[in-house]
């Protein structure tokens, strides 16, 4: 979230699209209810189903799965057409005025630079026109035909209300009503908050779904504002912490990136990530990258990381290609993976195309499952009839199951969607042989290190030299790990403004802020964005002060929020260029004549005078928010509607030659496993329901009572056509497999008119499997396609094709 959970209460309009917080985040949803009850907020829900969130909404629009960009592109067109944008914000704080280089273009569904053979773009034309002074050229009047504003206007001119209705199924009247509500927040004293989750990410255009909303919020002047922002509601407890700590295959902690082979030496690696400002007086905060990198390498390898060896640069792996979930399971399927460690992960249930996964797992030599629960993945080799039709005698994979602890059986911090690190304490011992994850990992690591010490090996150095100075080496404590992530001074850190003043930090001290990190090896920090969470003053994450002096839900003394205990990112943008808050009722930070102050920690250089013209988006070298994404996205600088890889209407109504995302990765064997509407006529989407959490709570009695059995949601017309009544067994088939569940025939999904055709949507909740206390059920991801977003490779769980039929009675 750019903002945070509590901040939702400050919104005037709450747009829930690509998420269903009443069901997936019922506790956080209280802030939506609060916004409605005490801020007279309007709640708008756009979803393929009338969800429990829609049950309390003011406006609901049913959208075809996978058509979000068409809808949001239509909103952009509406805002530009009616000039319902916050003009001063847009000209000062976004790249609307920036001139794009000659050569950039968009035609028939493709941007300039497409290489059909590689399914990828040469993005060199997606850039600004640079002046001789080394700065990007701008036209503050927004009149230049090549400025971002004009290009954007041209790009979205095609997204008329009629086109939106035709592609998404949302009637023009409803769309108009929603546009007007959204547009009302272009006033400086009104804000819209966007709440989304996996309903946006799990598409082949997932990242662009979110970017489209980012553009809308920039146009409305809602980024950095209380009650504004683009807010990802994370799908697991602490999944925010997972990404913060770089547990994705191409990330290092704090959103630094793993070097690629092409990066060459450390100088090149750092230079690529240390961009100079491309507009006058801008901050370009990533210029500090070397400080974060060196401090991180010192945290990991201590004395072995020296200036001479590039701070142990050679110890880091160099990526030859990406190793996301789909890539790894494809390698496994091809028989190219020997062993796989699943920690708190049940991929057989939560990754797409179960048959392919089963085949891959069966080719492993060994599988390790570290989990507090019995997962389907760890039992993939068991035959459970139709639910898991494998032949155990043909599977040679050795499976190790290491029982771990649940959240209440350990202490530590969890990072919530709003970037708050909140410490929690152990309530009970794990049952049986269960151990905390750090203990399990430490035991494995120490044994491996001993083996390397004994037997040598090709390159034992990174393992041998890893910092491991925990009091009990086989059991690092949560506090020790938290202190390490925060970081400490390895030598005195002098005050650069006055070398005679007391040092900013004394050798051995916990650091107070990442502003004190150095690139000379005198500081160590395991995750720079967590620097400040465990200081000399103690564990900031354990604070529990509910005081909220501004009344805006800032609560600076509750837990700790990265970065720098800042509660709203880009909050400099909540004030106008002169430093005065846009809305006197929503004052977050302001210029007091001498420095930036406020209720929140300013996301800015605190002594930068407004007249110096530094812009609020300090992480970007141009200092402004990007309506035009330059080369940062795989499939184009402006989001464009592409059909899902399995589309119920076949062709893309906007450009028949380019259907799905042209830059997405699709393996040849998976291409052959895509269904066509002739055989699989119905649009399908998967989702969670409130009674369960993923594949965990089916192991607990009460949630099992509350939602005991796999069900399939169908509209009344489709059910009538197929002779299916509520409670019947219904079979759902995709090109990849078949599942059977109980039919829930509902008015909450309606047939839609799309491009002249009737399109039915079939709803398929996840949650069930062959293990647990619920009724044994099929794994819903038996059906889903093995293709992901072009940028993140997040699987396309939310839009695919199926056929349905009535199944024999009792055949569930």
């Amino acid at each position, binding site marked *: 979230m750019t903002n945070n959970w509590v901040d939702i209460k400050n919104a005037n309009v709450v747009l829930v699209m690509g998420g269903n917080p*009443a*069901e997936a985040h*019922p*506790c956080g*949803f*209280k802030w939506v*209810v*609060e916004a409605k*009850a005490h801020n*007279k907020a309007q709640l708008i829900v756009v979803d393929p189903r*009338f969800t*429990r*969130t*829609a*049950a*309390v909404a*003011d406006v*609901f629009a049913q959208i075809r799965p996978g058509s979000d960009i068409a809808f949001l592109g239509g909103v952009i067109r509406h805002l530009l057409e009616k000039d319902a944008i916050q003009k001063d914000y847009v000209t000062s704080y976004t790249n609307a005025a920036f001139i794009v280089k000659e050569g950039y273009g968009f035609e028939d569904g493709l941007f300039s630079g497409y290489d059909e053979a590689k399914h990828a773009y040469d993005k060199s034309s997606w850039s600004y026109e640079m002046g001789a002074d080394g700065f990007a050229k701008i036209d503050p009047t927004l009149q230049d035909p090549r400025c971002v504003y004009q290009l954007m206007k041209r790009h979205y001119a095609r997204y008329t209300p009629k086109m939106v209705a035709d592609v998404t199924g949302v009637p023009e009247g409803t769309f108009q009503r929603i546009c007007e509500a959204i547009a009302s927040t272009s006033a400086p004293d009104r804000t819209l908050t966007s709440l989304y989750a996996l309903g946006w990410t799990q598409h082949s255009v997932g990242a662009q779904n979110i970017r489209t909303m980012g553009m809308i919020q920039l146009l409305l002047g809602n980024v950095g504002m209380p009650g504004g922002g683009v807010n990802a509601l994370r799908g697991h407890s602490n999944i925010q912490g997972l990404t913060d700590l770089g547990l994705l295959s191409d990330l290092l902690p704090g959103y630094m990136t793993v070097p690629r082979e092409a990066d060459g030496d450390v100088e090149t690696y750092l230079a690529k990530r240390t961009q100079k400002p491309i507009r006058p007086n801008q901050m370009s905060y990533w210029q500090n990258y070397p400080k974060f990198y060196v401090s991180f390498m010192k945290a990991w390898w201590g004395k072995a990381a020296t200036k001479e060896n590039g701070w142990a640069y050679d110890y880091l792996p160099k990526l030859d290609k990406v190793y996301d979930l789909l890539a790894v399971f494809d390698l496994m399927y091809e028989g190219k993976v020997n062993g796989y460690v699943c920690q708190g992960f049940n991929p057989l249930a939560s990754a797409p195309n179960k048959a392919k996964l089963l085949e891959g797992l069966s080719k492993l030599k060994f599988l390790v499952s570290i989990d507090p629960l019995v997962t389907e993945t760890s039992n993939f080799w068991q035959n459970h009839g139709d639910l898991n039709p494998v032949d155990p005698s043909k599977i040679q994979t050795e499976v190790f199951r290491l029982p771990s602890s649940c959240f209440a059986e350990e202490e530590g911090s969890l990072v919530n969607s709003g970037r708050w690190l909140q410490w929690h304490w152990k309530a009970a011992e794990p049952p049986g042989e269960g151990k905390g994850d750090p203990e399990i990992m430490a035991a494995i690591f120490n044994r491996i290190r001993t083996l390397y010490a004994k037997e040598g090996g090709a390159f034992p150095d990174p393992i041998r030299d890893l910092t491991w100075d925990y009091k009990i080496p086989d059991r690092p404590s949560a506090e020790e790990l938290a202190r390490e992530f925060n970081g400490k001074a390895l030598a005195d850190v002098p005050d650069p403004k006055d070398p005679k003043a007391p040092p900013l930090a004394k050798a051995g001290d916990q650091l107070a802020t990442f502003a004190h990190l150095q690139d000379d090896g005198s500081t160590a920090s395991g995750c720079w964005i967590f620097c400040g969470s465990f200081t000399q003053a103690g564990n900031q994450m354990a604070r529990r002060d509910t005081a909220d002096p501004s009344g805006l839900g800032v609560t600076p003394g509750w837990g700790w929020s990265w970065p720098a205990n800042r509660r709203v990112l880009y909050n400099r943008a909540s004030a106008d260029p002169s430093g005065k808050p846009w809305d006197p009722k929503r004052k977050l930070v302001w210029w007091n004549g001498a420095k930036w102050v406020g209720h929140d920690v300013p996301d800015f250089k605190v002594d930068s005078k407004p007249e110096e013209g530094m812009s609020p988006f300090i992480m970007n070298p141009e200092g402004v928010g990007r309506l035009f994404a330059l080369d940062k996205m795989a499939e184009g600088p402006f989001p464009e509607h592409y059909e899902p890889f399995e589309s119920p209407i076949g062709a893309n109504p906007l450009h028949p030659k380019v259907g799905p995302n042209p830059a997405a990765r699709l393996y040849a064997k998976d291409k052959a496993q895509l269904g066509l509407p002739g055989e699989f006529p119905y649009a399908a989407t998967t989702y969670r329901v*409130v*009674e369960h959490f993923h594949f965990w709570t089916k192991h607990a*009695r*009460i*949630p*099992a*009572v*509350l*939602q*005991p*059995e*796999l*069900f399939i949601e169908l509209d009344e017309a489709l059910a009538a056509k197929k002779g299916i*009544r*509520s*409670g*019947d067994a219904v079979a759902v088939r995709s090109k990849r497999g078949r599942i059977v*569940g*109980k*039919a*829930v*025939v*509902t*008015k*909450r999904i309606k047939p839609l008119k799309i491009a002249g055709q009737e399109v039915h949507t079939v709803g398929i909740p996840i949650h069930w499997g062959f293990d647990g*206390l*619920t*009724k044994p059920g099929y794994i819903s991801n038996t059906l889903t396609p093995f293709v992901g977003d072009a940028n993140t490779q997040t699987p396309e769980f939310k839009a695919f094709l199926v056929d349905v039929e009535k199944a024999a009675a009792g055949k569930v």
Partner: protein
Amino acid sequence: MAFQSLDVINRSASTSTPPQARGALEVAKLIDISKCIGCKACQSACMEWNDLRDEVGVNPGHYDNPADLTAQSWTVMRFYEEELPADKGLAWLIVKDGCLHCAEPGCLKACPAPGAIVQYANGIVDFQQDQCIGCGYCQTGCPFNIPRYSMKDQKAYKCTLCSDRVSVGLEPACVKTCPTGALAFGTKTDMKDLAGERLVELKARGFEKAALYDPSGVGGTHVLFVLPHGDPELYRLPKDPRVSPLVALWRSGVAKTLGVLTMVSVVVAGFFHYMKVGPIEVDEDHKENPS
């Protein structure tokens, strides 16, 4: 609130005089349907607090699970899909079903077992299962179809409004756990005030018919509903619930008088029969061969 709030003011099949020296405030739970997201956290909390564990059932073709109230499920969420008139679109009405704790409880009136159903001074109607004879009359007496009979111990069960928690100053478990504030708990006066504020807000939002459900036919209830669309029948709540006249007759003074009159007349008739016919004499055969 403390233990005195549990002073019994009404007891099934009994004529004892309730204590009156202490005053107690009437409590109420307010269910604001406009804030309810049907998350079933209340169902979960009810099972946790009351140590209830219903069977893992089946999906009956809708979201209601368990499908009905049982001796193990004292509250269940019910989901109704309604196409509203006048182009207002679809509504998914989510109603938390369970005991309403009537001021004039039909169950208590119908119950023939002394002390099996009691009403506390704070308005809570509670079943005392140790006194319950399992006759099921409480089900007949209830205009809301709430009490459920347990096949395990042949006794009736329903929501207690967490009388154990309320007696020590806590809110019911469902209220404590409700994440959106759809459930509130306090004195009945405060809850009616809160409902009044909600109605003003809802009417301003376009729910012109929004109304409070506190049916007078049962003397008012201690579980109140804010109904955004007003009409109770949309939410499958009886429009004007009343205790069945048969139950009233059965437990009323009329029935008692009739019963006493019958007994007296039997005695009187017996006396005259004796005076006129004399004692019943047993013949010798019967004396010898008692059969």
